């Protein structure tokens, strides 16, 4: 994984010192709250419903054991002993005090971490495939591209006061595990007819109150042109994006209003006029790539007798192996998902003890690497098949063994009304109720891949538009009302979910999800997933039962 050199370290330290000064100037009154706001947001500090919230950047989700331990430490020293892993592959702490924020930032800097640009109207943490570097179907490792973008976007002098936030995601495989089509810019590593590596770029995707699927702006961009091209994309957005209404200020609205052809024309014109100084030289690219060279795997047989035997002997382990263990490009290894979705838990939450346990497991059995997923789980990217049983046993001791990756209880939920100042309804308790309805492991596996995503307001932090089943919590005259969508998809077959009809009360929503799942189980054809079944049958088949039940 990438490690800071002296310059990265000096950059982060300078930023930490600057932020300390800004907090002092806010306290002295030199900065008004209005002026301080974007500065603290740029350092990840939100003012939430009950307290400040600090969101720490985990660039493209990758961290090592020492960094995970530092997060555990911070959660105990400055917060309430837990943290919340987010859909942007970051972690947030819900109860820090303003006066502690500079100390937290300093503690983070000691382990090569920061909170730069985890919020605010700037370029946010770049996200990617949690199986980056190990996925067998990968054309190329997307992480060097992510790191290039991380550096280029950090405290960018021109793009730090944008009209709205700006999110970039990168994938190295055709199978899109990074939801690039619902990002402001999506970057896909591809090869052209001549076999040269490059990028396909999508622009103008996004969720929020006006969800849109991104459109292709360039089918093939040579690798060396990426940063200049991004600069052109951002400059056109910064100059022409709307500033009159914050709900119409994202790039998706600009692209929608002027049309992708016109936006592309402006970008291409801008790009053509640039002199190329924005592009990093080959030595810098090689320096970054070297950090992502495959680690020192041991030579191992492609199968493991121990792994096979333990699957036979322990049904719980077998279920975990079926659901949470993923293929790896190196024989004898696997990637394993630690689910942060135990039945009854808050999706994405981990206690300090659990973080330490994950750090220990990573150090011992995953070449000291972890990756936060946009589905709010944690991936151990390099586990030997021989070690999987030991890993699972260890994780079980901290309740980290839920065998539900990608199943109905692997629910994404925003913090909702329990924490968030913007929320209009609760999210976490809804996730918990639904998970409890589907506790039975056999039933979950019978249902198969099904992603439920819950947002507590129209800002859609829970990505409900792209859930196979999406749930949006609204406030209807002081009462929570949950709108359901079905058919959403964040992958390479991206689609926005369709609304079923009138919303459901807090008490009704679990039953409604049950009705949808039962309809699917009754009507599906052999091997058909929920999403495929919906696409074949259409809305009416599901609607009937849904509203008959209500």
């Amino acid at each position, binding site marked *: 994984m990438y490690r800071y*050199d002296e*310059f*990265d370290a*000096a*950059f982060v330290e*300078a930023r930490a010192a*600057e932020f300390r000064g*800004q907090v002092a*100037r806010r306290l002295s*009154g*030199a*900065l*008004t709250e209005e*002026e301080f706001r*974007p*500065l603290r947001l740029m350092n990840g500090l939100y003012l939430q419903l009950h307290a400040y919230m600090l969101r720490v950047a985990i660039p493209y989700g990758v961290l090592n054991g020492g960094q995970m331990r530092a997060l555990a430490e911070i959660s105990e020293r400055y917060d309430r002993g837990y943290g919340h892993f987010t859909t942007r592959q970051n972690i947030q702490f819900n109860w820090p005090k303003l006066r502690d924020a500079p100390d937290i930032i300093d503690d983070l800097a000691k382990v090569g971490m920061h909170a730069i640009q985890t919020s605010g*109207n700037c370029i946010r943490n770049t996200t990617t495939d949690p199986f980056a570097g190990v996925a067998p179907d990968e054309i190329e490792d997307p992480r060097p591209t992510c790191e290039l973008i991380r*550096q*280029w976007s*950090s*405290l*960018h*002098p*021109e*793009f*730090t*006061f*944008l*009209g709205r936030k700006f999110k970039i995601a990168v994938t190295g495989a055709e199978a899109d595990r990074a939801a690039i089509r619902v990002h402001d810019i999506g970057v896909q590593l591809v090869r052209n007819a001549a076999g040269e590596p490059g990028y396909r770029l999508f622009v103008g995707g996004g969720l929020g109150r006006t969800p849109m699927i991104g459109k292709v702006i360039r089918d093939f961009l040579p690798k060396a042109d990426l940063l200049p091209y991004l600069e052109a994309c951002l*400059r056109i957005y*910064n*100059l022409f994006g709307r*500033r009159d209404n914050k709900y119409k200020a994202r790039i998706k609205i600009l692209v929608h209003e002027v049309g992708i052809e016109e936006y592309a024309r402006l970008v291409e014109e801008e790009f053509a*006029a*640039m*002199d190329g*100084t*924005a*592009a*990093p*030289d080959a*030595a*810098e690219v090689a*320096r970054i790539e070297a950090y992502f060279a495959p680690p020192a795997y041991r030579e191992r047989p492609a199968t493991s007798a121990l792994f096979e035997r333990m699957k036979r002997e322990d049904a719980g382990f077998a279920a975990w192996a079926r659901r949470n263990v993923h293929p790896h490009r190196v024989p004898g290894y696997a990637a394993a998902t630690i689910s942060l979705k135990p039945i009854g838990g808050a999706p994405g939450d981990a206690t300090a003890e659990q973080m330490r346990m994950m750090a220990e497991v990573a150090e011992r059995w995953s070449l000291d690497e972890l990756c936060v997923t946009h589905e709010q789980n944690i991936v151990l990217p390099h586990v030997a098949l021989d070690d999987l049983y030991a890993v699972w046993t260890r994780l079980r001791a901290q309740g980290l063994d839920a065998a539900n990756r990608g199943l109905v209880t692997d629910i994404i939920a925003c913090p909702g009304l329990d924490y968030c100042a913007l929320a209009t309804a609760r999210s976490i308790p809804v996730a918990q109720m639904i998970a409890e309805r589907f506790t039975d492991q056999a039933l979950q596996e019978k249902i198969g891949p099904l992603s439920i995503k819950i947002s507590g307001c129209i800002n859609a932090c829970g990505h409900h538009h792209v859930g196979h089943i999406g749930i949006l919590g609204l406030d209807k005259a002081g009462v929570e009302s949950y709108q359901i969508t079905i058919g959403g998809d964040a992958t390479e077959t991206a689609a926005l979910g369709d609304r079923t009809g009138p919303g459901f009360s807090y008490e009704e929503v679990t039953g409604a999800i049950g009705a949808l799942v039962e309809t699917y189980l009754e009507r599906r054809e052999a091997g058909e997933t929920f999403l495929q079944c919906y696409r074949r049958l259409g809305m009416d088949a599901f609607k009937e039962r849904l509203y008959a039940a209500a």
Partner: protein
Amino acid sequence: MPLRDDTGPIPDDWTRVEPGAPLARRSLLALEDAEARGEALEGVAPEALGLAIPNDTERARLAPWLSRVSLIAVAFPAFNDGRGFSLARALRAKGYAGRLRAAGPVIADQYAYLRECGFDEVEIPEALAARQPEAQWAAAAKRVGLAYQQGYDGRRNILAARAEARER
């Protein structure tokens, strides 16, 4: 209104001339006014002519003026309206070599970014200057920083520093 650059507070020897009013020794004109005056401005030396523009001014409209003026003052309607950063950058890319002024309630924390995008000076409202006294601007101007972006002025470039380190 208070004006400063890297050297500290400086006197403003430009006069904002109202549309159609007689020119001053150094006249800062609104773009529409300058366009309306047409031939009357021919023969006015660039040293005596400046343009005040809003931050959504079309770049094509500015092209004929870039060699005819020695000051362009870009309005910042609010500190967090960042269009001026891109506009400045674009004007420098088009070869504009005169002075660039950020005019409006920008804050000291933005000073480095403004400089890097091509601005030379900032003109801020009195009330803001009272709240953020000169010492804070001086500190912002002196802060030695590092930057990843290439092609912008100002902070020490990290990629260049790495290249130097490789050669050593």
